[in-house]
Every structure is written in structure tokens, then in C-alpha cells.
């Protein structure tokens, strides 16, 4: 009975949009073309999947997800190890390190777009000029890479924060014993630290997947998916169809596709945490 409100509202939140999306996806429904909506079968799906932007957008989604996860996990582990032992100013370093995570995506994206990556006045351009290199127009020449950098900058602190917390609970006596037995630093890392980090890494990957599957604001405010489709992911493609081309039908077909894509990932993830839950 106490469960009812949560289950009820969540069920509505899920099922109503899903049913509506299903319905929209099989009718002709374009906000710019008034007139009765008519049943057109799977034409919307066909249109969405054969859209020349479709293939690249799927690849971009996966590239973005994979790169950000790889970067944040690897660098995050390194950073966490670096600040794990006490040193002067460690408290301040910790606080500074996690700050980018609390910056809202739109502010983060614009900060990078203008102040960092601008080819004339941006800091990165100035740095490369200082070294006598030609400045790079990041957002035009490497749009997807730029988005990856921006998103990674936001999520690196998150991964780092979780690894730092986890490292604190590493058994010190066990470490000491291993050292006494003659294990070198690399061996200690490999046989003690790594297994200990297994669980936090899984958690970080899971949470990042939830949030990064549909990166939107960062693309919306920086590249607008371009140039061309170079930084369009599935989420942004659907948005373009719905609110820029006003084609509700096609957008809905795309949305269903995104749901399927997400569910494939979800099945895999739920298994992973399902195991953790029983512990």
C-alpha cells in the first residue's frame, strides 16, 4: 500500500509516454503539416533508419560513451592513487578536484567552447601559439573529440571521488604485510589495490552509462550536432527531428530505437548490480 504511489507514478511516467510514442511512431504526424493524422505503418522507422545521419549518430553515441568511461576510469584511478596518501594541502586538493562535477552541463560546455577552445582567444589556442604551433579550431575540426573532452572533464571528478572513497577503506595492515613479504609496489597494486577497486569501477561504469547514454546539453550548446553530423548522437538526432523538423512521427520512431538501445545496455547492467544487491 505504501508502495503504491511510487510504483503508480513511475508506471504512468513510463507507460503513458511509451504508448504515445508507439502511437506517434506509426502515424504521419508533422506539426508543420496540419491535417488528419493517418496510419502509415512502419514508414517512420524506415525513414529514421535510412536517414544518412542515423549510422553516424549510433557510432557517435557509442564512441562518446566508451571514450568518456575509459578516460574517467583510467585517469580517475591514477588521480585517486596520487592523492590517497597524505601530503600538504591534501584537503584543498580534494575539494578542488571534485568541483567540476557540480558545474551544470550548459555552463561547463560554454566555458569550454568560448574560453578554452576558441581558435583565436581561447586558452588552448594561446598555449599552442606559445609553443609555436598552429592553434586548433577544436569545435570545427574535432567536434566529437571536443565533446568527449568536455564531458570527461565533468565526469572525471565523479570517478575520482568514488575511487578516493574506496581507497580509504583499503586494508592497510594487509598492505603492510604484503610489503613485509617482499611484494613490490607494482605487485601490491596488482594483487591488492586492483581487486579492491573492482566494485567501485563497476559502479562508476554503471552510473556513467545511465547519464551518458543521452548526452544532450553539452552538444546542444557547443556544436549543435555539427558540423554536418560529426557530433550528433542518437539523443540529439531525435531532438532535431522532433523540435527542429517538427516531425513527431519520425522522432517517435527514433525514440523507440533509443529505448531498445538503452535496454540492451540495461539488461547487462542490471545483471551486474543484481549480483551486488544480494551481498
Amino acid at each position, binding site marked *: 500500500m505504501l508502495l503504491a504511489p511510487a510504483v503508480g507514478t513511475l508506471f504512468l511516467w513510463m507507460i503513458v509516454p511509451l504508448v504515445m510514442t508507439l502511437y506517434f511512431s506509426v502515424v504521419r504526424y508533422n506539426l508543420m503539416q496540419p491535417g488528419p493524422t493517418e496510419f502509415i505503418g512502419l514508414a517512420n522507422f524506415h525513414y529514421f533508419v535510412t536517414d544518412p545521419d542515423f549510422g553516424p549518430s549510433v557510432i557517435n553515441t557509442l564512441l562518446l560513451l566508451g571514450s568518456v568511461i575509459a578516460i574517467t576510469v583510467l585517469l580517475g584511478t591514477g588521480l585517486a592513487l596520487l592523492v590517497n596518501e597524505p601530503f600538504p594541502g591534501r584537503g584543498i586538493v580534494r575539494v578542488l578536484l571534485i568541483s567540476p562535477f557540480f*558545474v*551544470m552541463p*550548459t555552463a561547463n560546455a560554454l566555458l569550454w567552447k568560448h574560453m578554452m577552445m576558441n581558435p583565436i582567444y581561447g586558452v588552448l589556442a594561446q598555449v599552442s601559439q606559445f609553443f609555436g604551433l598552429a592553434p586548433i579550431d577544436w569545435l570545427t575540426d574535432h567536434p566529437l573529440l571536443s565533446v568527449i573532452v568536455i564531458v570527461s572533464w565533468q565526469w572525471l571528478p565523479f570517478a575520482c571521488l568514488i575511487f578516493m572513497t574506496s581507497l580509504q577503506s583499503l586494508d592497510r595492515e594487509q598492505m603492510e604485510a604484503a610489503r613485509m613479504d617482499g611484494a613490490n609496489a607494482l605487485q601490491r597494486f596488482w594483487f591488492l589495490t586492483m581487486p579492491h577497486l573492482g566494485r567501485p569501477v563497476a559502479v562508476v561504469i554503471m552510473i556513467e552509462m545511465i547519464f551518458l547514454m543521452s548526452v544532450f546539453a553539452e552538444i*546542444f550548446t557547443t556544436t549543435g550536432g555539427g558540423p554536418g553530423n560529426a557530433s550528433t548522437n542518437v539523443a540529439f538526432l531525435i531532438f532535431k527531428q522532433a523540435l527542429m523538423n517538427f516531425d513527431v512521427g519520425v522522432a517517435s520512431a527514433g525514440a523507440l530505437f533509443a529505448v531498445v538501445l538503452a535496454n540492451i545496455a540495461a539488461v547487462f547492467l542490471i545483471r551486474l*548490480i543484481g549480483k551486488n*544487491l544480494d551481498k
Partner: protein
Amino acid sequence: MTRTDILPLAVRTVSAWTATLLIVFPLLWLVLTAFKTELQAIQVPPQLFFTPTLENFGEVQQRSDYLLFAKNSLITSLGSTILGLLIAAPAAYSMAFFRTRRTRDVLMWMLSTKMMPAVGALVPIYVLAQTSGMLDTLTGLTIVFTMSNLPIMVWMLYSSFKDIPPEILEASRMDGATIWGEFRHVILPLGMGGLASTSLLCLVLSWNEAFWSLNLSSAKAGTLAALIASYSSPEGLFWAKLSAASLMAIAPIVVFGWFSQKQLVQGLTFGAVK
């Protein structure tokens, strides 16, 4: 000096500080730019020393009504947190203490709704909001924020309630406590940590939420995330103002985050990382 040292203290200190400063550099730059004039902001080479000015902050307020957006952000964040707690807490309570065979399935199902990309629901939610007159209203945004955070809230509360020993509840029930009394006198005090971290996380997520606020709100109910996005036009002539606006939008939540990072880790990882 600990004995597990691999690198000498000096090397570690220097490298940790270098890495940290590199990572926060964009933020420091933002703060610096916010106090420059527009001309100084785009000067080559950039100026590190200058007379700080406060004019950008005044102008941001004047030109785009910062306070209105800040108020919207505050209302939607707080509103969705409170609403979410009201719905999630009873659910988490009943799942944690009256486990059935289906409890696990329900939890998994809830999490799976969160894995659905928001964009999948964009069209229907947009159409629903439009037909019900909720488009660009604070009520509409609050409801949407609540729903998108609800699965995480239920999960976090569930994992913190689960750590309360059921014997205590048993005892209070023997003493004749009603469900409400039990909730107030046992769960609330014991689950305070979980409730706090859940609220903190929900506040941060709602404050920074950009997808729904960009798509469902504009002039009236726009949040700070949407205000900042409106500064995205390509000319590089207003960096100082952009920085000032960004600084005002992120400062409250970043400072808030500093104080609550411990609880946030516990919460975000469903207590799986301690």
C-alpha cells in the same frame, strides 16, 4: 610519513598539485574572467593581473533577469526534492522492511526506467505538457524533475533503510507503535543519513538538470541551466558576462557540493562503495 609510500613526499605533492590545478584551471579561469571587462577578457596574451570589476554581475541581472531564473531553479530543485521524498520514502520503507519475492523485481524495474534515455519520452511529454498547459510552468518542470529522479531516490533510500536492524522495528511494534509512529520515531532518526544524502543528490541533479529545462521551459519557468544556454551565440564579445552569469549559476551548488561530498558518494553508489 606512511610506510606504504612509493614516491617521495615532495614528488607526490608537486604532481598532485599540478594535476589538480590543471583540472580546475578552466574553473579558475572562469572566475577570473568574470571580474574582467569585456576587452580584457579577450586580450591576447591574456592578462593575469588587472583591476577587478563588478559591472558584469549587475549587467547580467539587468539584461537577462538572473534573479528570476535563480528563483525558478530554487523552486524546482526544492520542490522536486520534497515531492520525491514524499513518494519515495514510503516505497523504500515498505520494500526494506516487508520484503516479498517481488521486491527485487520492483527495484530492478524502477532502475530500468532510469536507463531509458530521457529523449525517448521527449515527444510525448512535450505534447502532454502542451495540451495540459504545463509547458513553461514551474509546476510542470517540478513534476518532470521529480519523476526523473524518483528511481534513484527510491534506490538510495532503500539501501539506507535496509541497514536499519529490523529487530528495532519489531520491538517498537510490540510496544504498540502505529506505522506512522514507527516511521517518525524509528525510521526518521535512524535513516537520517540516507534521507539527507538522497535530498542532497536530488537537489544537485535538479539544479543542474538541462535536458528537460531546455526543452520544456523558456522565458517564464526557465532555470539557470537554460539561462546559461541562452548565452551560446557564437560571437566572442561577451565572455566576461557569460563568465559572470555562469559563476552566479554554479557557485551555490558547487559550494553546496563541497560540504556534502561524503554523503553524495554514499548516495550515488547506493551504498556499494564505502
